[in-house]
């Protein structure tokens, strides 16, 4: 079976000569949540727009479940749902009509039960007869999600779905995305909230200046780049780390009142217990121990700095 989405050597040079994507290749597995991360202008929306048929690629190919998005655009596009980054909605239509319109547009026969389920899932049911322009921004975003889900897509693109969305709604969206994933829908989302990617994604891709720098399982990424920092608050002030205690990854804080140990930098590390035994032997007393796991955000910032 072909992968649900295969992007091969995709490039985009916009008119005027700006290269927004440079030889991007990527394969997605069915039913995974893939988070595409990258700073503003990295090319995330461009990539999504090409797959959805809104932007013409200048090089490379894209296949959705084996269907070329240009040659075989009909079966390819039938599988795709898109929630664009910007809020683009009709004003005078009702919620019900605009969502039903989307279903028809994607070639699906009328199915009121499905539309009802989607609207209820997105807490829009009581707004179904309201004109879109009377809705708040967060509601409009949900309308866009409802439109994208109206035709039961197998691949869902969410371009910054939670921008400007309150905490509660964000949790609701996460729940919905997981539910869709469990139904076998493949989800590609972009976000600038890294804790969101950390919470949601199965795999993560990092794009920068049009190049896909890295694609990996989130857990592997966290393990590979993630570090653990242990801060040991000392009861006394030290001027230097005693030789008996010293080890790689151990530094003294500037004020000499804490020892900082970074773990996860070298594969074969001495057990942490060694350090505490050494401290006890050296007669160094400590009052508190704090551990800190680096987040995806730290990893991301670090990556961006390394490649700057």
């Amino acid at each position, binding site marked *: 079976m072909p992968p649900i989405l295969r992007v091969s050597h995709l490039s985009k040079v916009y008119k005027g000569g700006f290269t927004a994507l440079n030889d991007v290749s990527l394969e997605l597995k069915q039913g995974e949540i893939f988070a595409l991360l990258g700073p503003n202008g990295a090319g995330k929306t461009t990539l999504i727009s090409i797959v*959805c048929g809104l932007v013409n690629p200048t090089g490379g190919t894209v296949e959705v479940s084996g269907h070329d998005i240009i040659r075989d655009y009909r*079966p390819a*596009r039938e599988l795709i749902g898109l929630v664009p980054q910007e809020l683009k909605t009709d004003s005078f*239509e009702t919620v019900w009509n605009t969502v039903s319109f989307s279903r*028809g547009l994607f070639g699906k*026969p009328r199915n009121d039960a499905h539309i009802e389920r989607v609207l209820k899932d997105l807490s829009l049911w009581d707004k179904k007869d309201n004109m879109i322009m009377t809705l708040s921004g967060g509601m409009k975003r949900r309308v866009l999600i409802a439109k994208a889900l109206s035709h039961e897509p197998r691949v869902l693109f969410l371009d910054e779905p939670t921008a400007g969305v309150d905490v509660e709604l964000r949790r609701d969206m996460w729940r919905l995305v997981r539910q869709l994933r469990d139904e076998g829908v493949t989800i590609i989302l972009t976000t600038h909230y890294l804790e969101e990617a950390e919470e949601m994604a199965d795999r993560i891709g990092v794009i920068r200046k049009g190049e896909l720098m890295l694609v990996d399982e989130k857990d592997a990424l966290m393990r590979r780049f993630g570090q653990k920092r242990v801060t040991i608050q000392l009861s006394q002030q030290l001027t230097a780390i005693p030789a008996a205690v010293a080890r790689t990854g151990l530094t003294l804080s500037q004020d000499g009142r804490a020892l900082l140990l970074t773990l996860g930098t070298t594969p074969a590390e001495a057990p942490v217990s060694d350090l505490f035994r050494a401290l006890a032997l050296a007669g160094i007393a400590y009052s508190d121990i704090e551990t800190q796991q680096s987040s995806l955000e730290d990893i991301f910032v670090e990556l961006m700095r390394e490649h700057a």
Partner: protein
Amino acid sequence: MNFHAIKAIYMFEMARTARTLLQSVVSPVLSTALYFIVFGSAIGGHMNAIDGVAYGSFIVPGLIMLTLLTQSISNASFGIYFPRFVGTIYEVLSAPVSAFEIVAGYVGAAATKSVMLGLIILGTSTFFVEVQVLHPVWMVSFLVLTGITFSLFGFIIGIWADNFEKLQMIPLLVVTPLTFLGGSFYSIDMLPPFWRSVTLFNPVVYLVSGFRWSFFGVSDVNIAISLGMTLGFLALCLVAVWWIFRTGYRLKS
């Protein structure tokens, strides 16, 4: 063929028409009534019959054409320009629809509306003058054919225009003069020979002439030529639309 999509776009556009029904019907009907009062009654009373048709009746087909052309162009151009302007066009562009299906939906709806208006104006005119339709089938055929052709033309304008000024420029600067000079209010035989020849370059002449023939059985130019010119313009518009979708002109970057 994605019939669901054609229907969705068509119904969406018709719903838009329904929302603005009053203004879209009232203003053409009002202006037609004014034309009849001024040209039909006030001036027409002093005019000789043309080809045996009373002047008031003579201008009916021209007036219908005037409305049909302007309405087709403005409906269709706005219908596609507006989603481009607010950005909702993304959905149509990302849907599994062919260029033909998109055009059928938008142009079909615009043509439906302008043909309906044409018929309403025909109805309105019967309150002012006596109207006979000698060839009703041809009359409706010309109405529909012209409605579709100029809705297509409007669709092209709506894609070409990148601001509201441009959207209104073509109808205002090109179509209105051509319609007025296209024999809506006179027979081109009334013109001096030189101006008569010049007029033959105006495509609207053929539309009005053919349409008038379906009413009164008389025309300025041969009916076959009228039909041929209309079909020719339709073909031209179709080629332009085909090119637009093939290249993504003004639709995709």
